[in-house]
């Protein structure tokens, strides 16, 4: 099995972000997508803590401690950026103004249900952040994750077992092994990481993968 590196996966997602999009990158690995945007595209990154136009990490020593993204990383602001307060920021998310969100996930179900905020560990305090607002408002939700858990168990399932973030919200899933669309019929293969076979990937997936689209 060929498993994409985190950087290669971020680059694969970046390829699908159209020029001129408003994009929210979820905390963690999705924040790396912007570093791999193909040349010639202008994409405006939104961070829910109050900035449109998130730019790259500043050089060491030039950080502004009050200019951070939702992952609490130091960032910069690109030309054309704007700052705003939280209610306005979430109006952008909930109100359908952001085009694309890229999120991590614990589990995705074949009906598009997403679980990415809580496990079943009751001792661990729940922490939801802004994910529930993103998934109800952003029309295209891309999930970016490892195909399986560390113990090899599938994260792509018929139904989620962890508490849901949103119902039927995921459009497409990018994993280290394959790219899958969520369709009314279930998961449909978009592409395999070169070198992998559908049967290999199916064996690591907890729900049927439909035949790829004819190409």
């Amino acid at each position, binding site marked *: 099995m060929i498993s994409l590196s985190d950087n290669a996966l971020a680059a694969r997602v970046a390829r699908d972000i159209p020029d001129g999009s408003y994009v929210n990158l979820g905390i963690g690995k999705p924040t790396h997508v912007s570093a791999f945007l193909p040349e010639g595209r202008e994409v405006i990154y939104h961070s829910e803590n109050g900035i449109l136009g998130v730019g790259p990490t500043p050089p060491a020593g030039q950080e502004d401690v009050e200019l*951070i993204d939702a992952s609490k990383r130091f960032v910069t602001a690109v030309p054309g950026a704007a700052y705003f307060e939280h209610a306005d920021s979430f109006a952008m998310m909930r109100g359908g103004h952001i085009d694309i969100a890229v999120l991590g996930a614990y589990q995705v179900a074949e009906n598009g249900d997403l679980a990415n905020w809580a496990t079943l560990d009751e*001792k661990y305090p729940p*922490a939801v*952040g802004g994910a*529930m607002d993103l998934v109800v408002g952003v029309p295209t939700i891309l999930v970016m994750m490892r195909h399986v858990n560390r113990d090899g168990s599938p994260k792509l399932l018929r139904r989620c077992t962890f508490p849901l973030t949103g119902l039927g919200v995921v459009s497409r899933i990018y994993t280290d092994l394959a790219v899958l669309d969520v369709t009314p019929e279930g998961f449909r293969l978009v592409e395999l990481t070169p070198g992998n076979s559908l049967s290999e990937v199916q064996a690591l997936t907890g729900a049927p993968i439909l035949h790829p689209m004819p190409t």
Partner: protein
Amino acid sequence: MDKRLPDLAAAVAPITDGAVVMIGGFGSSGIPFGLIAALLEQGASGLTVISNNAGAGETGIATLLKAGRVAKVICSYPRTPGSIWFERRFEAGEIALEVVPQGTLAERIRAAGAGLGGFFTPTGYGTLLAQGKETRIIDGVGHVLEAPLRADFALLRAERADRWGNLSFHATARNFNPVMAMAARHAVAEVRQLSDEPLDPEQVVTPGIFVQAVVEYGVRP
């Protein structure tokens, strides 16, 4: 009209045991570290804290949690890396926790400030966080009814203020500070710089009507 106070201690003096206190900030930006330190010193306990996070390391809200001053936390994301004092108090069952989706938290605070009785939001519909709440299908989409969230006090961080309490902010330090100013009976802002001149009326982010007191705390963390 002059809302400027001489020091942080004067700003937190009115806060009583059991008060509901909103605290601005997200991650490490826009947190009123000076006011929080003054509140720790002042000694009020049994507080309900409304904030996005629950402090990290040994700073900010974590200092109140460590000192046992907090009875309840209402927030969206208590699990910032290094939130050890929140985790200890939570595991020991010493604090109550209400987790609210971040946008719903901001909107509930705004609703209180704007005098609204509540709102229907699609956020959280069908999830654990909607359990026990009234729901309704509107235009084919499931919604949850959410109530306004108000406070006795708000502790805010801003960049500049004038004597009328008008505030401006710096970069992403704005975050929850403007809505919290609206929703508290008594909102106090620590600012990096008190201005002798009025702020430009076009550039005021939080009009002074929402702010009861301002105090200078020049440190930018």
